[in-house]
């Protein structure tokens, strides 16, 4: 090969790299390992984590332990999907392109919107991009952000806002829900959009129609960050007039995976299609009149439009969007509804039983909740978590993580996979702990995100 190249030696190929930038000798890292040795070491790491096969997982807060069909795992690992690039040559990418089209179609069925893109990084960045879209559409510069939106999503929105393109104002919840009168007061003329969550972070189902109506009355966009499983039973925000519906697609067939890779969905009205960030697949015909699929409206995107693009996103979460599409296809309308109904039934079963434990109440009273709820405990939630872990129960997400003033509140999620036996075990653990919670203060925890 060197002879054909006409190079005296391989090193001469990179003679352009000045010697002072070269690495002398091998990198200070380990020698190579054989497959079975790697497998041994990775298995040790993996086994030291508490996984949902060995612990009863009642953690939610945006990431849920839902059923994932075996057929999905098999399809998603096919080389044809996993090792393909972005479909820039559509003639040899019809598989990817049609599945994107089907994904877009099914996201729109769930959200009640007309157009969905081929995915964002996650629910948080989908919210940030939605805020950005609304600024452009309304010409206003302030986002009204509900405290019912996941605290981490709100952080990401604020990070993106720090670029100076918009300001963020927070809209508090009262007893777990948005109050209509307070919202109307907060919707001043400089507000470009109200960004809210359905169900919200504390599990409460908001009155979407009223929130959207209030936003529109003030000339602002209504942006909903919605849970896709809940949308199998809840009225889709799009049917109530929302302008943008985004969310986290993980509950639709994506493993929890320590929080990544995830996938954000992003859906809008057709009139905003030229403001859409990211990729979009559409139908066309080939030279012989056969139906085919292509990426369309690419002039919105960075590789064509450069500094005038609607977003800088390039690589997205395509394979996870495919997982969403396969999941929705396998479960279908009835299957996804079953998941949502069973999750809701079990969530209410556990909430009812837990709230009967002396000293334990539901933090948000009788506000309607769907797939998770907030328990208020008689002592620090972090202490109960530790007691429950000993029984192989991951009992919930302590809200102290996000708000120091709530050390006794615990966000609990129940999916269709949790059994009655696991929930009864949960209640036993709670009962026993509530009888004699720790006297000593719980060690200061570092989290405060």
């Amino acid at each position, binding site marked *: 090969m060197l002879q054909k190249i006409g190079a005296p030696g391989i090193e001469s190929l990179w003679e352009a790299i000045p010697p002072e930038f070269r690495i002398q000798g091998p990198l200070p890292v380990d020698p190579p390992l054989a497959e079975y040795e790697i497998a041994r070491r990775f298995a040790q790491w993996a086994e030291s984590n508490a996984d949902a096969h060995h612990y009863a997982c009642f953690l939610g807060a945006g990431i849920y332990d839902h059923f994932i069909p075996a057929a999905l795992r098999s399809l998603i690992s096919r080389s044809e999907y*996993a090792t393909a690039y972005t479909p820039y040559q559509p003639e040899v990418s019809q598989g990817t392109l049609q599945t994107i089209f089907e994904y877009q179609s099914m996201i729109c069925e769930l959200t009640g919107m007309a157009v969905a893109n081929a995915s964002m990084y996650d629910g948080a960045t989908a919210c940030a991009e939605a805020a950005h879209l609304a600024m452009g559409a309304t010409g206003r510069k302030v986002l009204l952000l509900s405290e019912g939106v996941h605290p*981490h999503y709100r952080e990401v929105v604020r990070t993106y806002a720090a670029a100076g393109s918009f300001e963020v104002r927070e809209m508090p919840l009262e007893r777990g829900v948005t109050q209509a009168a307070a919202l109307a007061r907060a919707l001043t003329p400089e507000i470009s959009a109200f960004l809210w969550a359905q169900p919200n972070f504390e599990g409460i189902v908001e009155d979407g129609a009223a929130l959207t109506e209030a936003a529109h009355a003030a000339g602002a966009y209504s942006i909903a960050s919605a849970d896709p499983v809940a949308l199998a039973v809840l009225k889709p925000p799009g049917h109530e007039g929302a302008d943008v519906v985004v969310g986290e697609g993980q509950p639709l067939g994506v493993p929890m995976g320590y929080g*990544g890779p995830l996938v954000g969905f992003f859906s809008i009205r057709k009139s905003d299609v030229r403001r859409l960030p990211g990729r979009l697949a559409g139908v066309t015909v080939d030279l012989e009149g056969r139906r085919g699929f292509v990426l369309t409206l690419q002039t919105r995107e960075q590789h064509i439009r450069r500094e005038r693009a609607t977003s800088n996103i390039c690589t997205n979460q395509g394979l996870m969007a495919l997982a969403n599409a396969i999941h929705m296809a396998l479960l279908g309308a009835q299957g996804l509804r079953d998941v949502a109904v069973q999750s809701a039934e079990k969530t209410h079963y556990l909430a009812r039983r837990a709230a009967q434990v002396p000293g334990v109440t539901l933090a948000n009273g009788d506000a309607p909740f769907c797939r998770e709820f907030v328990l208020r405990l008689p002592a620090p939630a972090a202490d109960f978590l530790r007691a429950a872990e000993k029984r192989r129960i*991951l009992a919930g997400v302590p809200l102290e993580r996000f708000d120091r003033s709530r050390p006794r509140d615990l966000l609990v999620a129940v999916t269709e996979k949790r059994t009655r036996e696991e929930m009864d075990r949960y209640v036993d653990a709670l009962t026993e702990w509530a009888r004699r919670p720790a006297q000593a203060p719980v060690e200061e925890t570092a989290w405060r995100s």
Partner: protein
Amino acid sequence: MAELTLRELSVSDHRGPRLQPLDVPAEGLEKLLPRERLRAKAAGLPEISEPAAVRHFVNLSVLNHHIDKAIYPLGSCTMKYNPKLNDEMASMPGFAAIHPFQSEELSQGAMAVIWELHEWLKAIMGMPSITTQPAAGAQCELTAILMTRAYHAQRGDPREEVIVPDSSHGTNPSTVNQVGYRAVTVPSGSDGCVDLAALKRAVSGKTAALMLTNPNTLGIFERQVGQIARIVHDAGALLYLDGANMNALVGLASPGSMGFDFAHINLHKTFSTPHGGGGPGGGVLCVREALEPFLPTPVLERSGERYRWSYDRPRSIGRVHSYYGNFGMLVRALCYVKSLGAPGLAEVSREAILNANYLKSRLVEAYAPSHEGYCMHEFVLSASRQKARGVRALDIAKRILDFGMHAPTTYFPLIVEEALMVEPTETETKASLDSFAEMLLTIDRETREDPERVKQAPTQTPVRRLDEARAARKLTLTWRDLEAEGDGA
């Protein structure tokens, strides 16, 4: 006939996998939630059996080109083989079925994986601090330019512009705009590298940063990177490495020594995690000490044998991802580097460079190279000679598909007429490079002897050329749009 859509395949009441029967007393949704908040009718999802769904997705899959089938020489995309072991490791329940909010005590193995990957990548890049929270390269750029803003703001010296070369990726100027800076483009010189005189003219007290791809998108190492760094730093600005082309440098040269303040890595390019038909990627951002306080929260720390996430970061730009980034990709990348070890990593770069130079040497007789001399891991050809015969780079790209191979990146970088940007990667054998070269030489012959054949291509693919203008004019973006057109066929 093309594969039908799921909607067209739906048969009333057909269903896939089912759940266990409910094992708690059923209350009924109407009792649990206010009726007016519930859907009036079920979502319009398909009704299809599991075998029918599996056939649908398998039949669609085989319409794709992919790296496990044949060469995929997209320049700047680094389509290398994705080892199967990586996927197997990432799918173990101890990685795949763990929740981001379970306690740190019960997540130590996951945190150890991230820590060890960080150690390897810092050594490879020659830089002291790191985050793997960004989901992809473009989000690394966004993170770094936000950090640039915070850095200058903290010094009481806010800046207005970020400089990008005219050969840069589109994400660079787009990111700059998204972060509220103005993108200033500097031209490349006749050698394909940044024109130093033009750069000196462009740099001023307004300059916040320069974003540089090295090797650049022409596959040329910017040998004046040391001087570029001095010019940028003398103006008080920061130097960003768009690391899309790190596959040429791993183990051979370190960005830290070149004076970069930021450097990103795309795990889905250089570190073999799958491209997934568009994603997920894996973003890594390495930074100098002075920029460490601005990294996104949380930052992974270790004390003794225990790992913890640090949230107490008052100067941080904040979060850029819901949790800790694309963790599954981090597992795969660590698996890749541990499989190769130190000598293997350098060998990858050497072979990637050798393959590119060999392929280039076989093609220059027929296709004009953008620049003479050796290239790094990729090179750019111009189809200008073929264009004189009435055949464009696009036509050549389409003709390649007829041979069961994939086309190079076309029409990028923008500064080369009729560009074909070729990156074979270390994955290809000499035999594979030879067959790709012979195929391109055959196509060149066709442009002289039978140009129509090239212009009519492809004819051997599942569909022929698609009417992109029609797709943009008549937006059909969902099943509902398709039905509204009455175009069910």
